[in-house]
């Protein structure tokens, strides 16, 4: 009888955000479908009320079905047999219930059977599902692929594939190969065009493909013979019915064990081109990856929430030295910090989501009519913000969910190390989040340009302009001081060579993240004072974290880099 939406007021709080009504009005294009579809809203209030009620369904299914199945799914996992994958029985059950509830195709247009929800409730669902079972969240979350089809594929492809999403058919995005992981430009899977049949065929191998035996696949393949870089890659859609793809093996993983990770062999598998040739990596996959990174952000926050709740429960239950361990400073400090990091990453998650929501909505409007100059500039502004915030979100939320899972397990003591409590699974599941959909190191690469070109600093200055109530001015002053220190630190590296900047990039991106999350928590506190403790804790910690980074960069000389370079000449003992 658990409801993972209703038991967490931080979620509904997001629907009360001042930007929400604007987002809904853009998404619903002035409610033009009301009357045309019996479930379309007629006002912004109506739409938000529907989001709220549908999230209750999501919360109930997550609490009563998915969370209950999680342990068993983790233990039994999917099975590989005769070239196919069979889900664990709990996974199948989750899938069936969510299909019956109509939770697939959540963000798709209604004409394709979707709910036409904005990104906020969609991302929120991903968070709620991940709290219940992070592995299953991948299978559910791969409906993201449908978003890419909707954005870039032809009308025929849309009509052929999109209505099947709401019926529960699952997706996979087939990007990585044995020699193409972080570096997708190296993809070799071959797409050849048969002119007489006017058809494309795929041949080659893909590795580490989540849910690789899905009904609908998006495949990145080399369509231009003789090319070796990203410009020779195109994007294809493949239907399991067409045959030609077999699962060679599934991986035995540390965590998210319920989500099958497949090695696939494409043997003359027919496929259809999505969008234009040669734009596969440079346009479509980049867009898909941004969506997937937002998804991992949501998944990470969900895992953090689960870790926090397990820690809180155990700290109350466990008695030592005659009192519950939550009474000891060493424990309650850890718990309060877990909560602060959880709430900081959540506020960053939904801020990012709102930016994505607005620019995507303008994108769809622009297909129907010309945007006004104001709309165009607003669309551009939000797209840039989304691009700035997405890598920051992916980096920070995934690192925090790992730190939180670590601390939560620590609070469990020896019991946490045993298989008896859910935290050991949460701890294992958390680990992948800093790795897939671009490692933390690659998120830093994506984010650092916004450090050097001043975009993060400008954004901090924008937050500074938002008035806060007088009693919160001292907090704002602290953040302003942090901002000055950050600007000074950026100065320290400016003009240095690329390797030097790359070397310090993570420190700088983290400093910017701490400041931005501090602002977001301060602004949340203006709307709801229950955020004050987390805000105060987070600002205090951020100050000390940033002091450390500033001091390290300030004391660093180019000479010291040599000590780090020396490791490069060492070889492993086996080599």
């Amino acid at each position, binding site marked *: 009888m658990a409801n993972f939406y209703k038991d967490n007021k931080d979620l509904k709080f997001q629907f009360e955000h001042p930007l929400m009504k604007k987002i809904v009005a853009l998404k619903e294009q002035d409610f033009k479908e009301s009357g045309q579809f019996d479930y379309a809203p007629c006002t912004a*209030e109506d739409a938000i009320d*529907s989001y709220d*009620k549908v999230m209750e369904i999501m919360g109930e299914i997550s609490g009563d079905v998915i969370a209950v199945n999680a342990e068993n799914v983790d233990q039994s996992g999917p099975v590989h047999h005769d070239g196919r994958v069979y889900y664990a029985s709990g996974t199948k059950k989750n899938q069936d219930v969510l299909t019956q509830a*109509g939770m697939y195709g959540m963000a798709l247009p209604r004409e394709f059977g979707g709910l036409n929800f904005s990104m906020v409730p969609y991302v929120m669902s991903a968070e709620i599902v991940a709290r219940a079972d992070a592995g299953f969240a991948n299978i559910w979350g791969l409906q993201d692929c449908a978003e890419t089809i909707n954005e870039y594929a032809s009308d025929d492809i849309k009509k052929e594939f999109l209505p099947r999403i709401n019926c529960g058919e699952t997706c996979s995005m087939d990007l990585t190969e044995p020699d193409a992981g972080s570096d997708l430009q190296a993809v070799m899977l071959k797409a050849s065009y048969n002119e007489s049949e006017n058809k494309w065929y795929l041949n080659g191998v893909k590795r580490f493909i989540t849910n690789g035996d899905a009904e609908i696949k998006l495949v990145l393949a080399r369509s231009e013979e003789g090319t070796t870089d990203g410009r020779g890659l195109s994007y294809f859609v493949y239907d399991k019915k067409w045959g030609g793809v077999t699962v060679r093996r599934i991986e035995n993983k540390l965590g998210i064990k319920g989500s099958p990770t497949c090695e696939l062999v494409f043997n003359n598998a027919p496929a259809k081109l999505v969008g234009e040739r040669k734009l596969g990596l440079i346009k479509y996959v980049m867009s898909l990856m941004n969506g997937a990174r937002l998804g991992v952000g949501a998944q990470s926050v969900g895992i953090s929430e689960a870790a926090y709740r397990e820690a809180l429960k155990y700290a109350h239950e466990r008695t030592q030295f005659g009192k519950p361990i939550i009474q000891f400073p060493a424990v309650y400090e850890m718990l309060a910090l877990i909560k602060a990091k959880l709430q900081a990453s959540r506020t960053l998650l939904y801020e990012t989501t709102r930016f994505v929501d607005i620019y995507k909505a303008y994108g769809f409007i622009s297909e129907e009519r010309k945007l006004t100059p104001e709309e165009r500039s607003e669309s551009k502004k939000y797209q840039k913000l989304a691009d700035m915030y997405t890598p920051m979100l992916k980096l920070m939320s995934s690192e925090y969910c790992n730190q939180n899972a670590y601390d939560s397990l620590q609070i469990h003591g020896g019991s946490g190390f045993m298989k008896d409590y859910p935290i050991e699974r949460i701890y294992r599941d958390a680990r992948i989040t800093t790795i897939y959909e671009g490692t933390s190191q690659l998120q830093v690469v994506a984010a650092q340009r916004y450090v050097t070109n001043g975009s993060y600093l400008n954004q901090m200055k924008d937050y500074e302009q938002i008035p806060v109530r007088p009693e919160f001015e001292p907090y704002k002053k602290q953040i302003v001081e942090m901002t000055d220190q950050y600007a000074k630190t950026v100065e320290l590296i400016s003009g240095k060579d690329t390797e030097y900047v790359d070397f310090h990039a993570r420190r700088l991106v983290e400093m910017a993240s701490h400041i931005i999350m501090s602002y977001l928590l301060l602004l949340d506190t203006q709307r709801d004072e229950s955020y004050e403790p987390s805000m105060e804790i987070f600002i205090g910690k951020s100050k000390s974290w940033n002091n450390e980074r500033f001091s390290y960069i300030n004391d660093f000389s180019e000479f010291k880099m040599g000590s780090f370079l020396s490791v490069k000449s060492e070889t492993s003992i086996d080599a």
Partner: protein
Amino acid sequence: MTKAFKIVVLAKQVPDTRNVGKNAMKEDGTVNRAALPAIFNPEDMNALEQALRIKDKYPESKVLLLTMGPGRAADIIREGLYRGADGGILLTDRKFAGADTLATSYAISMALKKIDPDLIFAGRQAIDGDTAQVGPQVAQKLDLPQITYAEEVLEIDKTKIQVKRRLERGIEIVESSIPIVITVHATAPECRPRNAKQLMKFKHARTLSEEHDNEHNSYLPLYTMDYLKIEEWGVNEIGGDEKNYGLSGSPTKVKKIENIVFQAKESKKLSSSVQDMDSLMKELIASHTIG
């Protein structure tokens, strides 16, 4: 030939007695309804699922919910609509107040005569009274066959139905003509979840009374669409003999209510010896607690 069935599901709004807190009972031993959340009776939910499965198979079929209770019992009908039902009727009238199972089944059977369904599903029993009487009484009053403790509808055609029953010591497969009343057991498949589209479509559904009392805060004017109207029927709508309704139609009289508190004297201390375990096992088998 496509088959279509008119199916009515009898559902009751009950206090949630499954998670009983300290204040669940009043001093006089009656249920403190205000302290317990009102829910869709769980076995009625199993009954609804059986009805919806027939509709899945024969999409032309219609599933209607019929519930008796105060105005707020319209929630039950909305819950059913969110899960795939087509409509519902709320039996509500001051004259129904104080009804025991006999008066309740009278009112329901009168409403059913008006609806004239092919199939009537109900939960085996409600968790507030645990009588399991209303379903069978309705069948009796309508002179229809009945199958109780149903777990699954195996086959159905225009004239007959085959049903698996869950009995204490096994299962039984029976066949009957239709129309029929079927009461469904808790071991039957769980009801499907609320569906997002159905919810968004029917969240504006309400009764005329709710509209008048402004209880249902909706953005759509009432009856913009036909399907948004939840019918309310009282004695005027279903007819029948007024003395059979409510308190006057209820022969059940509560003589006394006792609070049973289990005492320590009812407990037994056992050691881990083979003899003690042996005697415990024999006792449990004899009482059918296990085995």
